[in-house]
């Protein structure tokens, strides 16, 4: 239909190339930092005897979500160890936790900012829409361009994918704090920081925790996809199962991902629930 084709792909490629050349040092440094985090998480967790680590998780589950969930987690973890996926399990956990920590460090302040400024909110909302509707695979490309293959681009892609829900729900939670509570704090002469720390964040806590929970779940789904760029972990086993048509192997790894998802979900949602039963 058209003679002329808009060189969109060339533009994007050259933009990415430009960034890579210009900020290569920054990316290398950042990459090293992320790798340091993930690797230490992984090594630290692998340093513990599997049984010790299992009991630790079961204890947290028990406390946060009741003894039934604790038992389910214990059974799942024993199965993981039994079928030889323990190391992959830990690696995936390390990846998700690292990505989630960065998500919280970046997402909470952005969410708070969005709640306090309508202008910033109107700027960031389309960006978040864009991030969430973009197919997850697409994030793998720039991640690989900037950080090569391996764990680090996996964490970065996961971070980008998991960031929006936390920003959205932090924003929502803080905006939903009743007007009178804010007025009360103002009337007593609260500073902006006191209002934030003593009123807004505590009252919005359960919504913010729902955001943390959502972003962990999204992150976990991304981690499996990130195996395509060599992020390792359980995703790698799933991927291998697909590539070699080994249904059993792929399914096994998939099942362990589900078990990890259940554990992370119950712990984080338990945290939100525990606070809200008081409210």
């Amino acid at each position, binding site marked *: 239909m058209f003679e002329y084709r808009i060189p969109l792909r060339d533009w994007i490629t050259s933009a990415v190339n430009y960034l890579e050349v210009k900020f290569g040092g920054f990316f290398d440094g950042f990459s090293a930092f992320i790798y340091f985090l993930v690797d230490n998480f992984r090594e630290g967790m692998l340093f513990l005897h599997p049984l010790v680590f299992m009991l630790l998780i079961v204890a947290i589950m028990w406390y946060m979500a009741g003894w039934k969930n604790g038992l389910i987690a214990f059974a799942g973890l024993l199965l993981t160890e039994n079928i030889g996926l323990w190391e992959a399990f830990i690696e995936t956990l390390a990846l998700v936790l690292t990505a989630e920590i960065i998500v919280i460090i970046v997402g909470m302040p952005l969410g708070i900012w969005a709640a306090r400024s309508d202008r910033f909110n109107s700027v960031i909302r389309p960006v978040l829409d864009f991030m969430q509707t973009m197919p997850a695979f697409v994030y793998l490309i720039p991640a690989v361009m900037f950080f090569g293959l391996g764990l680090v681009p996996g964490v970065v892609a996961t971070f980008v994918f998991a960031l929006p829900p936390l920003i959205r729900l932090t924003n929502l939670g803080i905006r939903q704090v009743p007007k*009178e*509570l804010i*007025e*009360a704090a103002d*009337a*007593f*002469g609260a*500073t902006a920081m006191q209002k934030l720390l*003593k009123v807004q964040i505590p*009252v919005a806590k359960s919504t913010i925790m729902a955001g943390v929970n959502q972003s962990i779940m999204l992150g976990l789904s991304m981690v499996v996809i990130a195996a395509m760029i060599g992020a390792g972990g359980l995703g790698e086993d799933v991927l291998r199962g697909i590539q070699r048509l080994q249904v059993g192997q792929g399914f096994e790894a998939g099942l362990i991902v589900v078990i990890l998802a259940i554990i992370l979900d119950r712990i984080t949602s338990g945290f939100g629930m525990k606070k809200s039963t008081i409210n």
Partner: protein
Amino acid sequence: MEEKIVLRNLTKIFGKNPAKAIKALKEGKSKNEVLSEQNQIVGVYNVSLSVRKSEIFVLMGLSGSGKSTLQRLINRLHEPTRGEIIIDGVDITKLGKKDLREFRRKNFCGMVFQNFAVLPHRTVLENVEFGLELQGVEKIARREKAREVIELVGLKGNENSYPSQLSGGMLQRVGLARGLAVDADIMLMDEAFSALDPLIRRQMQDELLELQERLQKTIIFVTHDLDEAFKLGNRIAIMNDGEVIQTGTAEEIISKPANDYVKAFVEDMNRSVVLTAQSIMQPVEDTAFPGDGPRTILRKIRKKGLTGILMIDTRRELKGYIRTSELVEYIKNHKEKEDLQFDKALLHNALSVDENMPLIDIINIYSGHQYGPVAVTDENNRLKGVIVKGAVIAALSESFEFDSPG
């Protein structure tokens, strides 16, 4: 009495071009016209009033009348568009952000809200110490103060409860305690008791009055309930469409409504609760003194055509009541003696009421009372006036217009 808060020409416009709205209002346009023509809301327009130290000042009006807006202007939760807010001589509209914060901490007991606005994640104790915590008071000191006011408002034993475990009445006590914990003079209460059921509400009103007797705060109380306004308010400002229509005591408002709006407003009011002895009493025609002889007294009675006369001493302290019929009988029986002494047996106990007694209680006294007028006295038992039966009936009829009381 000392003026604590003075508002001068206070105006609040919600909208993009307040100057335009004020101009329109000055040209005599109504609040509704400004809304429909300019899409700006007139919150409060040109309000001037003063609140005295240690009084309960009620802002009364229907929803949308601007009463809550006016209250929020006083601590600048809303920024005034025009006008001055002078508290203890300081024009707080001129304070910068930081000074305003300090001013609020020092002078306001926060605010008490209709829906309580207690922090759900904090216990009663932690809620009550909130204001002190913001001021940076040390934990031990603020805990002690918090426990003290918790006891004061009758919440002792609930220090560690969470708000979700408390009833509405108790939650409002928390709100009240939170304010009282901060040692400041001015308390702002926004429809504080409106969400409570009627029995609890009355109880809370009584307790507030009791507390006020002891604490002597300057309270600005917003309500849409006339009964509440008249019960609590030392003085009341009635608002409509962002303007104050009338300011005065309950009796002034009910006996001399400023216009038809106020008149319609107070029409349903139970007058017998609001009106007091003071507002229906009449001046005493004449009195007898302890030194007067029977004939002198009789002369006084005859001159005014009375059925009896009250006796007071030189300090105007009420001594008793003398019936004309008995006095005449006595004089008749002792005709021959020239120098007749007054017989103490003629002096009956006079029926007297305090000048602040509500009309409804006076009616009850009247029902069991056979003779004479009711004497009205002040707290030192000094005679201020008398109430006759006719005045009681007149006061209860709605069309009755009062002469200036007192």
